[in-house]
């Protein structure tokens, strides 16, 4: 049995997806990236080995998977057969996760990057990424959640219950000071959380509007399972934004699909040689 493995090492979490020979997704899991993407890659290889998927030849086992790595830590995956950027992978993965359409816009809110990708006829035709700043990314939410002493899920629960107060600073560091002064004023955690999430949604929506958007918009990445966030984006874009509990695996799935294509190309080449 040959497997096709996609490994998406993001700044916060590493996502892994495995396809079988038919292209069916047979496994996926997530681990925290931790401090070193190299260590994470090693750990992933061990976890895969426990499942009978061998990324390298060893004394006991033959390599039985092609691996494509993606995400900011893609270069740390030394055993990868190929490295592909997360933009291409998210586009491919989103095609698999959400029903195939001629054109789809993919919004991926990641730990340190947010991307808006326009996919037409299965190919990336345009993309935008946030500039070197954490506004509009998962990191922004994480920093503010820490300040409010909650985790990210609780942060969203609080936000749902609150009335957003304006967070105007775009810089994460200045926005944190803004949050601190709201705390000092005695504003409720719900309202502050609501303001923080709204500010991220606004920033992401502005980025989306800088690009031609498809009729179908989907949310991938770490916030994909979050219907509340998708609804906020829908509201700002005036267009439905679909989300999915599997959306965080879009990058890994796209990488696994690329691995499968790589395998097909290699066997074609082998056939030609013979």
């Amino acid at each position: 049995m040959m497997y096709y493995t996609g490994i998406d090492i993001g700044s916060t979490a590493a996502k892994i997806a495995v396809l079988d020979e038919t292209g069916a997704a047979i496994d996926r899991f997530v681990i925290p990236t931790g401090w070193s993407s190299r260590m994470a890659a090693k750990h992933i290889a061990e976890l895969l080995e426990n499942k009978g998927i061998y990324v390298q030849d060893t004394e006991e086992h033959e390599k039985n998977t092609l691996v494509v790595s993606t995400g900011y830590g893609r270069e740390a995956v030394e055993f990868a057969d190929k490295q592909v950027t997360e933009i291409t992978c998210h586009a491919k993965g989103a095609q698999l996760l959400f029903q195939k359409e001629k054109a789809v816009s993919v919004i991926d809110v990641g730990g340190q990057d947010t991307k808006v990708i326009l996919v037409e006829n299965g190919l990336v035709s345009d993309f935008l990424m946030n500039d070197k700043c954490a506004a509009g990314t998962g990191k922004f939410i994480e920093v503010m959640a820490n300040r409010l002493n909650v985790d990210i899920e609780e942060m969203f629960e609080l936000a749902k219950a609150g009335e957003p107060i304006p967070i105007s600073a775009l810089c994460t560091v200045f926005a944190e000071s803004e949050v601190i002064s709201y705390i000092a004023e005695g504003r409720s955690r719900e309202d502050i959380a609501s303001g923080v999430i709204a500010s991220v949604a606004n920033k992401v929506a502005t980025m989306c509007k800088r690009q031609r958007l498809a009729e179908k918009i989907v949310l991938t990445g770490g916030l994909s399972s979050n219907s509340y966030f998708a609804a906020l984006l829908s509201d700002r874009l005036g267009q439905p934004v679909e989300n999915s509990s599997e959306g965080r695996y879009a990058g890994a799935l796209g990488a696994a699909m690329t691995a499968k294509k790589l395998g097909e190309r290699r066997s074609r080449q082998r056939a030609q040689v013979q």
Partner: protein
Amino acid sequence: MQKLPDNFETYDEARQRGFLALKELKDKGQRVVGIFCSYVPTELIYAAGAIPVGLCANSEEPIPAGETRLPRNLCPLIKASYGFALTEKCPYFYFSDLVVGETTCDGKKKMFELMNEIKETFVMSLPNSREPREAAVAAWRSEIIRLKEKLEDFYHITITEDQIREAIRLKNRERVAFQTYLELGKLDPPALSGYEMGTKTDASAFTFDINDRIRSFEERTREVLHYWETERKGKTSDRPRIMVTGCPNGGVRDKLLKTIEELGGDIVLIDTCGGIRTQMQKVEETGDVYTALAEKYIDITCSVMSPNAPRFEMMGKLMDEFQVDGVVEVILQACHTFNVEAYNVKRYVTEQKGVPYLGLETDYSQADKGQIATRLGAFLEMLS
């Protein structure tokens, strides 16, 4: 990736070699005028018996010094150039008798006020519109005459029209040599790297004899053509052909241009002020010299001009001729005119020409190296 010639000289090596050559010339009494922009008609400087040297800084090193007096949120080229002037670390600035600036962008023209405190800086007032044409040409013509008079006063000389006309002929010959070299980018499959083209054109400023420069371009052109004929012709390449446009990119050459080629693209065309677009139009060799110079230079297609339709016409023509598959636009941080115009460039490139476009805003630091590589990687994946 296209290989670099065996005797390839990096920009830094050429710059270093230039120091010594310029010092020798200075010791012999050579006149030297520092300039910042392709709008400055260097014909007048040659006619004055002087050598023009470009002072646009490409290095990150002097930026902290520049930021002691300039705002942080300013173009890195301006901060670095001023930083060099302030710290006296740039021999080219040091050797310049006089600096000629121009009112192109707001950042530069206000910086020149400060630079003037360090070394005399003569600022030419460039019209920011070519319309109505007659008025724009007349205004620029009178500024060109003002520069001539300034040079005459400064060096206590008289500049004759014959001297200017001779300089025009010489510069035109140089333009032809530059242009022919840069047109090698049209070859399919490519036979030289865009990184080389960018480096060689920028570094040529450190060869002070214009005839040496012409020879060097002609020689390399012959070499590349021979290589193409014997080793490349008839072969196919699946590497996308990239045009780089936008701001001057010397300060991000390694972070950007080199990365594009390492990741699998071929830069065939660099459409910036240092690239082919300023070489294509020659100066009329007959008629009034000042009008001829004004006509040529006012047509340079920098984004400081508003409106700027000629940039798009030229870009479209070049994209066809060089068979461009993708466009990467480089915006230096806080360059408002290129940054705002980028919206129209993207619209033009994608909608009118049907070619993918990637815009990148960056500065001279290495902080965004990884992010830039990811964007470029994804863009090239998208093209292949």
